[in-house]
């Protein structure tokens, strides 16, 4: 329990937590005080001098003295005043100073209307300009496709460099120059290298760093229709706010969730959204009319009738579900085709690895932490995951965890942990223990001790660690010295830790790694130690998929080998990304009708005999389960053309039309969710993570549009001067208009953060119980996986053999790219720019032996096919291994493990 203190603010007594600084405390009390340099996730540095308040020595001190609230520890009996005229005058003075050089270009500034500087200026009361001189100006930089740079607007709060360098570990953004011409940028123009750079959009309190993707289709931020959403670009499940205008998705913003992503997102999640606006979007049903060979557009009714007819006349219909589709969508398809004929469109290997991860978490005694809890871990061991590229926000959380141990050293010096500058000075470069074992060098290496090897060697290291912790754990034999020494020191660090964490996943397609990670946790538990275990999963609903259970793609392949089926329904899944082309081709050829529900054209839709346009995340409602087992609801942002509907709605309509009348009971999403729970009781509770569609506050819905929304009577004037009736939302208690309840909605229904006087993302302060803590009403989402405290799982024993390179053969290891490996985000023009070209990764030794350099091309024989790929050299890769970027545009799909032979070299 936090130590409480009584403090007096402007004559009123408050009881508050004494571990916080005064600024946080004031904001947590929902009082208003201006600030710039302080950030709830980054602590205080006391640079901007904006948060000045009067502090009095005692009740007899009437004069008081100005202090910076963000640098003042809360002390029992403290007396302060925010409203003191001198303090107010000083704060207005700080704004006046900032305004001497600020260009006042709000009317053309992308930040305008959502700008912390505007808000603070108004709050301070400063409005009359005494400065009569020229302002300083800067040259702006090209910083890549994501961020727009407009340095003249800078108020030198230093938040950007603190976030970029200290928080996110980047080093190509810095501050240059002195006095009033300090400059925040790169040493030269160029793409910002850090994967979290996009957060500068929200971290910067002004319009210096703005969202360049929004800029490409700009709209004023108050004109957006927004809804709470969940990121679809990996399995972490970060919470987002998605905003639309004129039928286009315009931007993604962080939706604060104290248990998940907090204040931040990765750049894939923030900028990957533009696939929703892609020219390759499927917007109309496409049917093959009788006698014709190609598909042609059809209207909704025709499509339903035709497809229902196909289904009715089919002897057998097979359904293929998808880990990028919601629980409800998959469940509905499964209901149509029956459990027997429902398959998941992922390879057996991935499906069983994920199932294994889930079982370890669900049937074992080891807890899996939330993203926020990962930040609090003090020792982290990562087996086989290149987190920055497979689960970016987990990488960012691990970066924070390295601070846990060193920060403790500030306590004896009585330096409060929020005093960021002093703590960083005190701890210098000291970092808590993080161990990264991956085949190739990764970005997280900069904060970690590393181990390099093949998947099997990484698993062997894992087994060795478990063996070093508990003598009864199976051990790997014939360990080399490196592994012996390393496993010894890792086990020591784990034993000393208060909150250790093991992270692994299926990225390297290795069951042994998944098992070894579990063994470490089991060994820790046997030794009576606290431990947590986190598995990454590849897609936004991968965990939901294995929780639903069923069969994988390989079984579907087998099933049609045995008996021909006439109709296949594929939902939100491009099978050509899932398995080797020949295998998929052979499979598809077995069907007469291939009905594909998807939102974007891909290799699978090309093979369809009927295509149904379904809603992307922004045009759908549904539930995803993230890697932590947290069920999270996402909401439709806007209603596109009427043919685009949620997959589940389309499938249900088809069912009803084709005679399965009982499904007409399913009217809104909640009906689907509840039906799902009934059949799969372990999803119990996901129907209550958010209020039901009929929920109202004071009889009103929650508006998706802010009350500042403009143009609604004019925006359709080119078609009609009548204001069209807004669409109904039967699935949620939110309206598509600006009418409705204006107060704070329940935490799962926050479409935007706004509070009187707080128009920027900083309004989040007002939605939290205390600054940086949970949202009012609790952070949304429900954890479906909790450990069984008494479970006694037994150790895994599949210790692999040591890897021995074979002459003339290279073992491929999968390589991941934050920009490139994800199916959807590569359709966003910005992301597309950063996707690497196909390549093969070699170790420096092998490159030297083959006499190739980074420009050379290799000819490889993979599975009977020949590929030519340029070489990239990775300093960490071991000889005998070759990195193969998976699911990168232009690369083929291969089944791991696989070895290749090099058949030719072009230098």
């Amino acid at each position, binding site marked *: 329990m936090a130590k409480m203190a009584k403090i007096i603010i402007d004559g009123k007594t408050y009881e508050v937590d004494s571990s916080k600084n005064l600024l946080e405390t004031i904001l947590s009390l929902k009082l208003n005080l201006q600030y710039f340099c302080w950030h709830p996730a980054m602590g205080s540095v006391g640079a901007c001098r904006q948060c000045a308040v009067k502090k009095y020595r005692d009740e007899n001190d009437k004069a008081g003295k100005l202090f910076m609230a963000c640098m003042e520890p809360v002390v029992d009996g403290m007396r302060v005043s925010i409203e003191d005229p001198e303090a107010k005058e*000083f704060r207005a*003075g700080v704004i006046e100073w900032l305004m001497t050089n600020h260009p006042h270009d709000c009317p053309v500034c992308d930040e305008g209307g959502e700008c912390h500087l505007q808000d603070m200026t108004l709050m301070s009361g400063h409005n009359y300009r005494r400065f009569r001189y020229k302002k300083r100006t800067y040259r702006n930089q090209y910083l890549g496709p994501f961020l727009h740079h407009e340095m003249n607007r800078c108020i030198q709060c230093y938040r950007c460099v603190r976030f970029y360098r200290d928080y996110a570990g980047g080093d190509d953004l810095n501050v240059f120059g002195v006095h009033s011409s300090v400059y925040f940028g790169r040493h030269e123009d160029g793409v910002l290298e850090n994967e979290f750079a996009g957060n500068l959009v929200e971290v910067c309190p002004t319009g210096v760093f703005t969202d360049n993707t929004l800029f490409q289709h700009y709209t004023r931020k108050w004109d957006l229709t927004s809804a709470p959403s969940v990121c679809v670009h990996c399995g972490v499940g970060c919470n987002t706010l998605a905003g639309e205008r004129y039928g286009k998705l315009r931007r993604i913003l962080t939706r604060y969730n104290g248990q998940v992503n907090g204040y931040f997102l990765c750049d894939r999640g923030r900028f990957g959204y533009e696939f929703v606006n892609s020219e390759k979007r499927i917007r109309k049903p496409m049917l093959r009319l009788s006698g014709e060979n190609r598909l042609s557009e059809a209207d909704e009714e025709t499509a339903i009738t035709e497809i229902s007819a196909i289904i009715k006349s089919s002897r057998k219909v097979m359904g293929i579900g998808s880990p990028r589709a919601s629980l409800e969508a998959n469940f509905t398809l499964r209901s149509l085709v029956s459990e027997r004929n429902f398959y998941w469109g992922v390879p057996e290997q991935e499906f069983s690895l994920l199932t294994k991860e889930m079982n370890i978490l669900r049937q074992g005694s080891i807890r899996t932490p939330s993203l926020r809890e990962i930040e609090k871990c003090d020792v982290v061991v990562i087996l086989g995951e290149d987190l920055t590229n497979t689960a970016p926000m987990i990488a960012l959380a691990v970066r924070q965890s390295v601070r846990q141990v060193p920060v403790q050293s500030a306590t004896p010096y009585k330096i409060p942990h929020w005093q960021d500058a002093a703590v960083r000075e*005190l701890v210098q470069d000291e970092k808590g223990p993080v161990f990264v074992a991956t085949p190739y060098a990764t970005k997280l290496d900069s904060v970690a001790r590393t181990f390099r090897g093949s998947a099997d060697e990484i698993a062997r290291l894992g087994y060795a660690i478990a063996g070093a912790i508990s003598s009864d754990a199976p051990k790997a034999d014939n360990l080399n010295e490196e592994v012996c020494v390393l496993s010894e020191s890792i086990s020591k660090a784990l034993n000393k830790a208060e909150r250790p964490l093991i992270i692994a996943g299926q990225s390297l397609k290795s069951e042994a790694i998944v098992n070894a990670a579990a063994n470490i946790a089991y060994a820790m538990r046997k030794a009576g130690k606290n431990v947590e275990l986190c598995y990454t999963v590849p897609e936004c609903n991968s965990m939901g998929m294995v929780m639903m259970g069923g069969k994988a793609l390989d079984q579907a392949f087998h099933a049609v080998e045995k008996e021909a089926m006439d109709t296949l329904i594929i939902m939100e899944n491009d099978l050509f990304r899932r398995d080797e082309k020949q295998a998929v081709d052979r499979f598809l050829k077995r069907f007469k009708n291939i009905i594909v529900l998807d939102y974007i054209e891909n290799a699978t839709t090309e093979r369809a005999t009927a295509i149904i346009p379904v809603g992307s995340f922004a045009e759908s409602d549904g539930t995803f389960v993230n890697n932590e087992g947290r069920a999270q609801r996402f909401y439709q942002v806007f209603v596109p053309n009427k043919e685009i509907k949620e997959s589940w709605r389309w499938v249900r309509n088809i069912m009803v039309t084709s005679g399965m009348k009982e499904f007409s009971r399913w009217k809104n999403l909640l009906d689907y969710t509840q039906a799902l729970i009934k059949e799969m009781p372990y999803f119990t509770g996901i129907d209550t993570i958010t209020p039901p569609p009929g929920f109202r506050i004071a009889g009103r819905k929650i508006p998706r549009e802010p009350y500042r929304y403009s143009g609604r009577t004019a925006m359709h004037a080119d078609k009609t001067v009548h204001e069209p009736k807004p669409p109904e939302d039967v699935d949620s208690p939110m309206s598509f208009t600006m009418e409705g309840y204006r107060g704070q909605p329940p935490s799962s229904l926050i479409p935007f953060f706004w509070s009187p006087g707080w128009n920027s993302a900083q309004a989040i302060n007002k939605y939290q119980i205390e600054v940086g803590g949970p949202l009012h009403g609790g952070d949304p989402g429900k954890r479906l996986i909790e450990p069984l405290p008494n479970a006694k799982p037994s150790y895994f024993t599949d210790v692999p053999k040591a890897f021995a390179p074979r002459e003339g053969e290279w073992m491929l290891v999968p390589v991941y790219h934050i920009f490139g490996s994800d199916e959807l985000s590569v359709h966003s023009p910005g992301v597309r720019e950063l996707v690497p070209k196909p390549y093969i990764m070699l170790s420096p030794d092998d490159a030297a032996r083959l006499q190739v350099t980074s420009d050379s091309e290799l000819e490889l024989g993979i599975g009977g096919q020949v590929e030519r790929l340029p070489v990239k050299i990775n300093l960490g890769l071991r000889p005998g291994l070759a990195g193969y970027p998976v699911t990168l545009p232009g690369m083929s799909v291969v089944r791991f493990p696989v070895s290749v032979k090099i058949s030719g070299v072009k230098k």
Partner: protein
Amino acid sequence: MEKILLLDIPNYHRIDVYREHGGYETVKKAYSMSPDEVIDEVKKSGLRGRGGASFLTGLKWSFMPKTSDKPKYLCINGDESEPGSFKDRQIFEFNPHALIEGALIACYAIQAKAAYIYVRGEYHNWIEMLQKALDDAYSMGLVGEKMKETFQTPYECNIYIHKGAGAYICGEESSLMNSIEGKRPYPRVKPPFPAQNGLWGCPTTINNVETISNIPAIIKNGWQWFSRIGEPRHPGTLLFGVSGHVMKPGVYELPSGVLLTDLIYNYAGGVPGGKKIKCVIPGGSSMPPLRGDQIEGVKMDAESLKAAGSAIGTGGVIVMDEDTDLVRVLARITKFYYHESCGQCTPCREGTGWMLKALNRIARGQGTTSDLELLIDVAKNIEGNTVCALGDAAAWPVKFMITRFRDEFEKAVKKEVVMPVASMVHSMRHTALPLAELKKN
């Protein structure tokens, strides 16, 4: 006349000469005392820092934690970049070994592992001189590994010279530490103080070059001897750097408490052409200036100058005769602080630039009366509200120069006609006239 630092001994900067006169013997004496005894001796001597704030040196040393699992450091501040201050370089040139010997004693007193002498980057020649002296001391086994043998002591420390790169802000103690660490020299917010969280996050004491150079004499002759020199509340000799309109500009070592007029007229030879003095800045350009009619009877020590409405600072006395254009002087001084602001905190970063622009305009003859109010207003808002004292250093000259030489500034500006413009009516915060007045106009 007693001198401690700038002795009239030829070639005293040479190690052989220094040693002939008993140099480095005091180290032995100090090392035979306990560290606390050394601190106590310095405390009792009443020695105050010569770096600007006149803080009690012994007291500062006593803030160092007695136990620490981290190494401790001494930083010696020779950044000397304040306009009007040029005394430490005399020590580098004429008595570098007193500095090195002082460092050895100070390090011992606070049990430091090493001392860093931070020297202003522009002082190329003086850096070479100091380096030569340090090399000599090393080669004679007086510093570093071999000192254990030389002084028959278990204690050892190293001394390093760190060159600045030309930024005044590096003289601020915490900036200086950041600079040594290889970081941008941003001053740190205090608390925590250097004794807690200093160089590389370790306990650190920082002192001025002159302060440290006084230590050997104090230990050698005892605190009583030192405390009786000059003004009791600020004892010892001070190195006064006199510049500006005087016949003999230079550095004078004199007991504290010497009369300012004595310093100017007797030692520095008075004002050329027998002109009257218009203004004297007694302690380096950032200290409040005194009017010519305010200097009579003013003694040169911290307390007396405080009472006179200024401060001793670094003892850099700048004399300006009756023909000096103070508007241009102030504009120039302000330009310096504007240019040297590190850019971390808003009041100093933005305020200095604004003041400079206003002063330049006044100097061009385009200023108005409201500019004077504005300048004082901005200066007052900066004062006391910044991360480091550079803000004060920039604000004081403006505030005091304009208030103390109001006539001269009034003459330089045009009277302003107040126009009741719409925006002023809307925003009363900065309107000099109440609304009723405005309406009357």
